[in-house]
């Protein structure tokens, strides 16, 4: 437990050092950190790397939103969403969009640990759950 906490502390410090001015994780800085860590023995760096990975994932999730759209008007929908996001959130959110036809229509947005969904697939699933 103590080792884990120590690695977490180190990973936090490394993450902090890799954040650029816009609050994003800088790829170049992360590459430099990895080169440095490779110089150390594997047994020492493995827990730090694991902790760093989960922290970086968490950080990226906090400013990167993924939206899946079930129709072909990706650009229009992305614009509306970006507007909505910048109105609701304090910081700038990067929005990555993709098409997912299994949703039939509607969207699913994941930002941070929250998932917002309003799709026909979800409504049909809810119907099925309610009926059984």
């Amino acid at each position, binding site marked *: *437990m103590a080792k884990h906490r120590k690695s*977490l502390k180190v990973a936090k410090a490394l993450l902090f050092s890799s954040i650029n001015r816009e609050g994003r994780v800088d790829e170049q800085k992360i590459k430099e950190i990895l080169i440095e860590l490779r110089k150390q023995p594997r047994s020492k760096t493995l827990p730090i790397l694991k*902790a760093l990975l*989960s*922290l970086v*994932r*968490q950080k990226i*999730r906090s400013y990167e939103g993924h939206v899946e759209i079930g129709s072909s008007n990706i650009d229009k929908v992305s614009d509306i969403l970006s507007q909505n996001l910048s109105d609701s959130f304090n910081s700038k959110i990067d929005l990555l969009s993709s098409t997912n036809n299994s949703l039939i229509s509607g969207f699913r947005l*994941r930002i*941070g*640990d*929250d*998932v*917002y*969904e*309003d799709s026909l697939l*979800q*409504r049909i699933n*809810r*119907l099925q759950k*309610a*009926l059984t």
Partner: protein
Amino acid sequence: MSSITDLIRKEIEDLSIDATRTNVGTIITLADGVARVEGLSNVMFNEMVEFPNNVLGIALNLEEDSVGCVILGETSSLKEGDEVKTTGKLLSVPVGKALLGRVVDAVGRPIDEKGAIDTDTTYPVERIAPGIIPRKSVSQPLQTGIMAVDSMIPIGRGQRELIIGDRSTGKTTIAIDTIINQAKINKKGLDSKDKDFRPVYCIYVAVGQKNSNIARTVKVLDKVGALEYVTIVSAPAADNPANQYLAPYSGCAMGEWFMENGMDALIVYDDLSKHAVAYRQISLILKRPSGREAYPGDVFYLHSRLLERSARLNEDNGNGSLTALPIIETQMGDVSGYIPTNVISITDGQIFLETDLFNKGIRPAVSVGLSVSRVGSAAQIKAYKKVAGKVKLELAQFRELAAFSQFESDLDAATKARLERGARIVEMFKQSAYNPILVEVQTAIMWAIQNDFFDSIEVSKITESVESLKDYLATQASEICEEIYRSGKLEKENEDKLRSSMEDWKRTLS
């Protein structure tokens, strides 16, 4: 057919069409019934989380970078990378009278194939125990039907009485006898349509036991007709440890419903040693620090918060009660082990069962010296108090003098009398399993022995004499017993009637 289409139509009409927002996480490790989840930033402690394929779990470890969840169900369908959702609810179980006569698992789902449980009320599994003000002191008796217990270690409604002993000493049998006796008393009382009669509903929580043992218990209760007043919560040894950990709390929630609605309930935890072992397993897998005997540091809190929820409430809060009979298995009679000492300090007394007595043929193998009830005679009806008051002392004196019984011919008359009386009392307390005796019959039998009616009977014939007396009381002297049952007292007039009945019975014996 039309009913089905109507049902479906109604469901479609009631369906909400709002967008949803859920808090999610991803499984990063999965082992031994515990999943470590990354994300879930809004999860609360002890909140129910949902895994894919409708598997539920509880968030028990909220750490800085991950959440440790115990899985309540099949882990075989889960894998790393699966999405986990919060439900916003604490784990709850269905409660109410619909649970009587049913066998359910640790989260209240029926496993006896008698259909769904028809109740809308659910209570959370973890709850804060009633405070000081809503409580009242224990004054109503809970008759176990076992003479050795009811006379010397009486239990009251709302008390916690620990049943402790080695393996195979009859601990579960005492609990089942108590349940059967409650069913007997309930039937009698409810048939008599007495307005003041308070039935006692029972909950039997089986933690870590063999499925065959649980099946046997269910059969025994069904055969004597006690099952309609009992709910059985089953978390057998093959269940994952999370279910075994939760089962006592679920049972307690079901009992609390009765208590808070002005009724009396009895809950048997069989047994808490296996419960502590299951909790130890979960804690060790969650990497919580371990202490003495590898149990986690909060193993006392594990049992204290469970047993504190058994109480007697005052009239303002419904006058209900929940009596707890936890069972602990000791190793080699060692009551100074970690878990036994913990639970002894929490409960209001213990019934200590000894292997020596069991092997000598004294069953129930209750050790009178080590057993105690901190509620005592406040929980006995007046009639019984009158006849049973001196029994404990007489037995203690008998035990002291037992070593001298070999010098039979050289003893003075008083010592001889004590030895004779003591030997007869020991014989009288022997009772067969699943055969509880109603309190009015017990009172009559104890009265007989205190008034020297058994002195002329040989010690080896006492057991069959008691049987014959029971038969006689059931047939010829039933009005006397009815009077004791109704009034709870033994008036002079009734006592005289009892004396003449006893004399008649004595004559039929010879």
